[in-house]
């Protein structure tokens, strides 16, 4: 195992770095998109609520592999929509980020919405009787508490995203799962390779989980 690590050390680090970059960019995208969809789903405008619901139903129920393959084969190859220069690798990398963001946004939206539901009715009634508008109420009273109560679920979503980023291997993005498949082809030490990549993900996800668990406790809203 240590022979393998020293032989492939830069490659392994590069692959995991791509995994982390995929995760980070998609997390930002998903957080922005998910917050917008969540705001739509709780807004007073029925049409906006329907659009939000449709978004969540569609993307939560489609396999991520399908979304990512569709982005690459359908939108990039068939329609010729480019996100980067002419290189296939760059385009697929960016399309993978789009696919991951769009998929994860549905889960971010649902977590946020469950957080909004934890805010007691009386609070926003009080806000309204002070003359707050919907937007003010959402921004000043409800969302700050909602965000604090969904730290743990958002941590889960982030970790799920980290693990899901391996699916980008389906369109040839050079992240951990792809390197693992390549190493299995070339090398004989199957168990060692499995252990390296399993450990790599444990090293990334466990501290993240613990951190979010701690943050959730730290910022818990006392009720």
């Amino acid at each position: 195992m240590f022979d393998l690590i020293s032989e492939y050390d830069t490659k392994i680090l590069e692959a995991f770095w791509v995994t982390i970059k995929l995760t980070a960019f998609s997390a930002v995208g998903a957080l922005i998109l998910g917050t917008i969809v969540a705001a739509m789903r709780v807004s007073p405008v029925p049409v906006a609520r329907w659009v939000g619901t449709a978004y969540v139903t569609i993307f939560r129920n489609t396999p991520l592999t399908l979304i990512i393959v569709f982005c690459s084969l359908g939108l990039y190859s068939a329609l010729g929509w480019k996100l980067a220069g002419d290189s296939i690798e760059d385009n697929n990398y960016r399309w993978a980020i789009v696919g991951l963001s769009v998929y994860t946004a549905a889960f971010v939206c649902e977590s946020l919405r469950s957080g909004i539901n934890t805010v007691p009715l009386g609070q926003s009634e009080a806000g309204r009787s002070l003359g707050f508008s919907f937007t003010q109420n959402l921004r000043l009273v409800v969302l700050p508490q909602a965000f604090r109560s969904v730290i743990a679920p958002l941590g889960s979503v982030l970790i799920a995203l980290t693990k899901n980023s391996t699916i980008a291997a389906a369109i040839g993005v050079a992240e951990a799962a792809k390197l693992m498949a390549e190493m299995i082809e070339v090398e004989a030490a199957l168990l060692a390779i499995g252990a390296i990549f399993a450990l790599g993900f444990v090293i990334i996800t466990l501290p993240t989980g613990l951190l979010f668990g701690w943050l959730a406790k730290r910022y818990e809203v006392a009720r």
Partner: protein
Amino acid sequence: MTSASVLFDAPGPKARLRNNIYTAVVVVAVLAAGYFLFRAFDQKGQFEAEKWKPFLEGDVWSTYLWPGLKGTVVAALISIVFALVIGMVFGILRLSEHRSVRLIAGAVVEFARAIPVLILMIFLFALYSEYDLFKSDDLALAAVVTALTIYNGSVIAEIVRAGIRSLPKGQTEAAVALGMRKNQLMRLILLPQAITAMLPALISQMVVALKDTALGYQITYIEIVRSGQQLGAAEQNTIPALIVVAIIMIALNSTLTLVATKLERRLRARKRAKGGVVLAADSIITDAAPGVDVVKKP
């Protein structure tokens, strides 16, 4: 909608006008996006009849889509059944009175949840083919099922633990007072109630398993996404083929989600009279992450 009523009153005349304007804005935005997509697809000839006609032919369904759907459903069903068994065992072990058992079971479950299913699947596929553990036709299926079983089993273990811990403490005390053994207590009192409480969460875990079979795409398992991609390559209609596959999966999964939510509502209504907890269908437990203790959540 309950979540909506938290945030706003019934609209008055001014708010109604404003809402109408927002409605118009949203409608226009959706229509514009739809038109943009339509034009892009149309320009590349994606709406030509010949791209969509294959779906009216029986051949295409019997060669590609049915086998794909069958692969997806078979893998999901087998792995959910195995995962249920493993999940119950580990869920109960995690509640054991012996500290060492608790710790080991906990470590196994957390570890199983921390590894991406795809990594597990690629590894198992290579392992099975190296040691010839299965017939070559069944290799991919075996790898998909094992990987999904390990992952979903660890999640179901958490669901079982949450289900058992949600029961009132008096039940255990009463059973012990009646002189029941631990085994009887678990088998006759706690598990039956926990299973009812966790049914909705279990059904929505099936959705996760169904979706995750698509990971088999990468180890050449014939499931619906791969068969859709093959169909698209054969008929030169990748976009329509993948759209049809998406529609099939969305229909299947949202039906399951609907069943789970309906069941949850019914159980909750029944439980309210007697007291007790039902685990929500789309509760965070079903996609909880390692290290985040899901059981403490309401």
